[in-house]
């Protein structure tokens, strides 16, 4: 891993801080350009799919941290997403006295981060049972948590209850979603390739030896849950401000499963795998509309096929730039 990371993230000595900032600024400019290009030239239907892919990428990457890296099987990601969506939408939509601020881009951004933080807090609460449970048992608990969240929102009339919450300002767009996707990727990538990240990976590999080597296993499980939930919350906030309307059923069990599929298809523990998994799971059902009523049958069939051909997911535990064909591409001799 030490060698491959130089490909994307500078040489071994690293990028100096000014270059990092310049690189990020360039990325933002590039995104702004792409955003303008897409908004003016691509039809709204395709635009919507592209943005949904971006939201899926954030969800997939964040779940990957818990399921793929820390090895804790969580099935409640839609719950965290719901917390982020509702908290941020509440701030921008219902809490009108502060409306002027929360209508601005900065305000929506703040609301989305607040939604993420609230989700992170709930991640802390769900992370606690994970200290005692593992495998299937943890999956059931997190599943239960997701459902509890949904039912709580179903019964809070301040956010519309079962009728949902309409009139959310349409502030999120291609630019913001993909900016967050890139930030999510960068943060999780850098976390995993650090000392704390190795501690998290060691929990997945072997909890007993991990604690015998001085890793505070409980602490890092909770850390993984909180960070993962934060980004899921952000994804929820972006989603709410893109759709303009949310209702509790948007965040049901199916949504959680969808995110798990993204991670599993891409390869548990692979960041690039989660990205590609998210794009596939979001786009395939749309591409398959051509097959009308057989659409979901073919979609499921394709998922089965992928898992048969690549039981560890498309990239296993590796990244796309570690794949042999990609490495060969890079190694092409200079003339």
């Amino acid at each position: 891993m030490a060698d491959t990371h130089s490909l994307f993230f500078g040489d071994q000595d690293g990028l100096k801080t000014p270059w990092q900032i310049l690189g990020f600024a360039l990325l933002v400019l590039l995104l702004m350009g792409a955003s303008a290009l897409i908004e003016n030239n691509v039809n709204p239907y395709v635009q919507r799919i592209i943005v949904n892919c971006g939201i899926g990428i954030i969800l997939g990457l964040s779940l990957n941290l818990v399921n793929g890296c820390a090895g804790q099987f969580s099935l409640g990601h839609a719950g965290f997403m719901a917390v982020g969506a509702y908290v941020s939408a509440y701030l921008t939509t219902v809490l009108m006295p502060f409306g002027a601020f929360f209508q601005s881009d900065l305000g929506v951004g703040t609301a989305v981060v607040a939604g993420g933080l609230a989700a992170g807090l709930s991640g802390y609460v769900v992370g606690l049972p994970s200290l005692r449970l593992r495998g299937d048992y943890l999956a059931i608990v997190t599943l239960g948590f997701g459902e509890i969240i949904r039912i709580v929102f179903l019964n809070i009339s301040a956010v519309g209850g079962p009728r949902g919450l309409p009139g959310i300002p349409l502030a999120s767009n291609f630019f913001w979603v993909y900016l967050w996707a890139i930030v999510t990727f960068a943060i999780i990538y850098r976390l995993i390739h650090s000392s704390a990240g190795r501690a998290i990976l060691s929990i997945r590999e072997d909890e007993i030896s991990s604690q015998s080597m001085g890793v505070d296993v409980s602490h890092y499980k909770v850390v993984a849950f909180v960070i993962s939930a934060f980004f899921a919350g952000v994804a929820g906030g972006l989603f709410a401000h893109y759709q303009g309307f949310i209702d509790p059923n948007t965040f049901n069990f199916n949504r959680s499963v969808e995110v798990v599929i993204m991670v599993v298809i891409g390869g548990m523990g692979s960041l690039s795998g989660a990205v590609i998994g998210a794009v596939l799971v979001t786009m395939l059902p749309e591409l398959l509309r051509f097959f009308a009523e057989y659409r979901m049958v073919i979609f499921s069939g394709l998922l089965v096929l992928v898992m048969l051909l690549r039981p560890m997911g498309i990239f296993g535990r590796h990244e796309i730039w570690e794949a042999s064909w990609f490495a060969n591409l890079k190694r092409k001799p200079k003339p």
Partner: protein
Amino acid sequence: MSASSAKEVLKLNDVSVSFGGLKAVSQFGISLHESELCGLIGPNGAGKTTVFNLITGVYLPDSGTMDLDGQNLCGLPPHEITKAGIARTFQNIRLYKELTVLENVLVSYHMRKPYGYVDALLRTRQYYAKEHELKEHALRLLSVVGLKNNPDDFAGSLSYGDQRRLEIARALATSPKVLLLDEPGAGLNSGEKVELMKVVSKIRDQFKVTILVIEHDMKFVMGICERILVLDHGELIAEGTPKQIQSNPKVIEAYLGVADA
């Protein structure tokens, strides 16, 4: 080196633990001295690994005291005990199979918090400097145990003998005062065992670490240990130099049984 003159490092007093009705370890007491190489032997089921699990905090003793350099160990969680200075290897190898050899060792440095989250996320100079330093140190440890050639291979792809060595390197990376080796020679052929004996002696000399080793191979134990403890049915039945142990009637009885009268 005379054991009695050296500083006492790890001290166990009257430690007992039982599982249901079974007294796994009863009134066990040892005292290990600085950079001593001590063997722990006994028939199958004597409670040797249980002793390791007690020292490392996996099990909580029902009674007795354990302390390391005057610090009480009873009731501390395993990672705190490792931080205090006790590291171990496992009888059934427990490596992080899908991490590389180097990463397996690097995990052990984490408890000393080489740098914070901010350094990791912003990739500060501190991050690169520390990562570089840790990698250098890990590679040095790997070369001590004879594994310097393939640091980027996955740990799971190593041969059995190399996996055992990696476990030792990984435990050493926590900079322990006391190193507990649980059957490091199990599953190795005689050639590999001779190599391992050299490695274990070298580690003791180079790192001045106290080593307690469980091993069934008598050639191994008698060959490198200065002192041997014999455990049977959870009780310490003998203690002494290899010579004394070899001729101790109680030990012979525990291993071979009593001759019919």
